């Protein structure tokens, strides 16, 4: 059996925010070409970990991107390799949809250069992938929260990076578009891309290939999503308020009600 290459590796990573340590020695391996979900209760450090993996905040320890130390990579190269979709970032309402998605091509453009045919093609494909192409001339401020999220997802896809890090990408998306997102992630991993997502929707997170379970700034479990040990770890970090059960061929998270009404 051939060993799957590692896209991202964290070794003993510590992060402090405002003088308080929030990640306490993270060791992690993310398989290339797979989708990994990070789950855990509020305040577990999921978003902070994702930002550290993207090189967006200072950390102690080491992070390797395809075996290269992340801290020493040139900004341009890193921005071509890692695509980031943040959570609830305040965006200005002025730019139109096309221009927003085109920003995803910044890592490939020289200063003051006009977008190339390849850039336009990538933007077009990303807009198609998130069914956002009909709004291309609209200002982003004129869109609903869900529509805006799809445009921001298109912007992240347009980078065409080999690694996509997404923090709560399903925010504001209605169920059909959540399913579309799932299909998009499947499509990306089928193309050999690596996807890492922080998700609150445990049911959706269970569709990933791998699962990272966090609690209080530490990783308490890492394994396949189909692994029963992963399910037990998720139930434990959520104080057994949810139970993971098999329904047909899928795993779903159902609430464990403390009392029946």
């Amino acid at each position, binding site marked *: 059996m051939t060993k799957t290459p590692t896209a991202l590796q964290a070794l003993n990573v510590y992060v402090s925010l405002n003088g308080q340590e929030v990640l306490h020695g993270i060791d992690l391996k993310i398989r290339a070409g797979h989708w990994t979900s990070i789950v855990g209760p509020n305040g577990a450090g999921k978003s902070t970990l994702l*930002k550290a993996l*993207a090189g*967006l905040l200072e950390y102690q320890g080491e992070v390797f991107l395809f075996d290269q130390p992340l801290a020493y990579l040139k*900004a*341009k190269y*890193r*921005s*071509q390799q*890692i*695509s*980031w*979709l*943040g959570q609830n*970032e*305040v*965006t*200005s*309402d*002025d*730019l*139109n949809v096309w*221009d*927003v998605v085109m*920003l*995803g091509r*910044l*890592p490939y*453009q020289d*200063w*003051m250069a006009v977008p190339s045919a390849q850039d336009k093609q990538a933007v077009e494909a990303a807009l198609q992938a998130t069914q956002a192409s009909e709004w291309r*001339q609209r*200002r982003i*401020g004129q869109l609903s929260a869900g529509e805006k999220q799809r445009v*921001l997802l298109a*912007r992240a896809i347009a*980078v065409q990076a080999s690694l996509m890090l997404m923090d709560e990408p399903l925010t504001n998306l209605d169920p059909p578009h959540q399913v579309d997102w799932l299909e998009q992630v499947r499509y990306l991993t089928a193309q050999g891309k690596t996807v890492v997502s922080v998700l609150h929707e445990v049911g959706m997170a269970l569709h990933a290939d791998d699962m990272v379970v966090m609690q209080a700034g530490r990783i308490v479990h890492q394994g396949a999503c189909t692994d029963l040990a992963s399910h037990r770890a998720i139930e434990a970090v959520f104080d057994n308020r949810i139970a993971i059960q098999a329904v047909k061929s899928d795993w779903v998270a159902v609430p464990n009600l403390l009392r029946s009404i």
Partner: protein
Amino acid sequence: MNLNKSNHWLFALTMLLLVVIGIGIGVSVGSSGLESLQNAWHDDVAWQIIWQIRLPRTLGAFAAGALLGLAGALAQGLFRNPLADPYLLGSASGATLGVALALAFYGGNQFAPDAFVRVGLTGAAFAGALLAVVLTLLLAKGVQHTMRLLLAGVIVGVVMGAMASLIALMRPDVLQNMQGFLLGSTAFIGWPACLVMVYVLLPCLCLAWFFGFAMDALSLGESTALSLGVPLRAMRIVIVLLVTLATGAAVAQTGLIAFVGLAAPHLVRSIVSVKSGSLALLSALMGGLLLLVADILARSLIAPQELPVGVLTAVLGGSYLLWLMYRNQNQGALK
């Protein structure tokens, strides 16, 4: 109204045309009216009025407005807040304090050196504005944290404003001159002042255009901009520098002109949807046009007397923002 991309040029050209018309009107109005313009070719005095007074004043009003419009667009992009104005870094209060100090030390002194009289107040205002921004940067420990920068700017503004008021209280003789500065005026812009503003405006416009892509990326959030490889730190330094220079240059020559920096980018945004680089350029054009119109009105409304142009921009700008708030109240936010 929201024009599509192909009409941006039309908008820019219309603005340019209006500016040219405004400059034409600007050199035609004044206490001696159109007469000076008609006699300019064969009457030295009339020529002097047009060439030495009206033209530099008109062009200067445009340049000052353009500087404020540009600084407003940049400040709003930097703080990612449509209500940000160019004075937010503390420059207005700094300039006021500079002027108050200069007036207190030399203002009433008839033996003050000539050079000081010429450049004294202008220099003091500029130095004060610059000092305020430096203090703001020191308090905010650099440019990394936008919120810290904003708070530091407010603190410096309040403290320096209070110091200027204290000086005015202790030296009532400077009060009237200071009031003139606080209200803003384009009446005393000569060629040197006009040229200084143009020299500051041109490189600022170029740099704002060059850094437009970074401002666009920043509009998607700091993390996203960083992930796209944007040199955020360098960009912030340049933008802070541009806002300081543009505001300092305008304030030093014209005093505190209210609302132009805030209203110009809003007006542009309400008509066209453009990227940050173009927004900065068009806001400069709009700011210039606004102050040009305000200057003409200031000269003609109660001619032969003049209104302080800052009063007009405050009334016009305030009314515009009120209307904007009324228009957008159903949307819940200023756009």
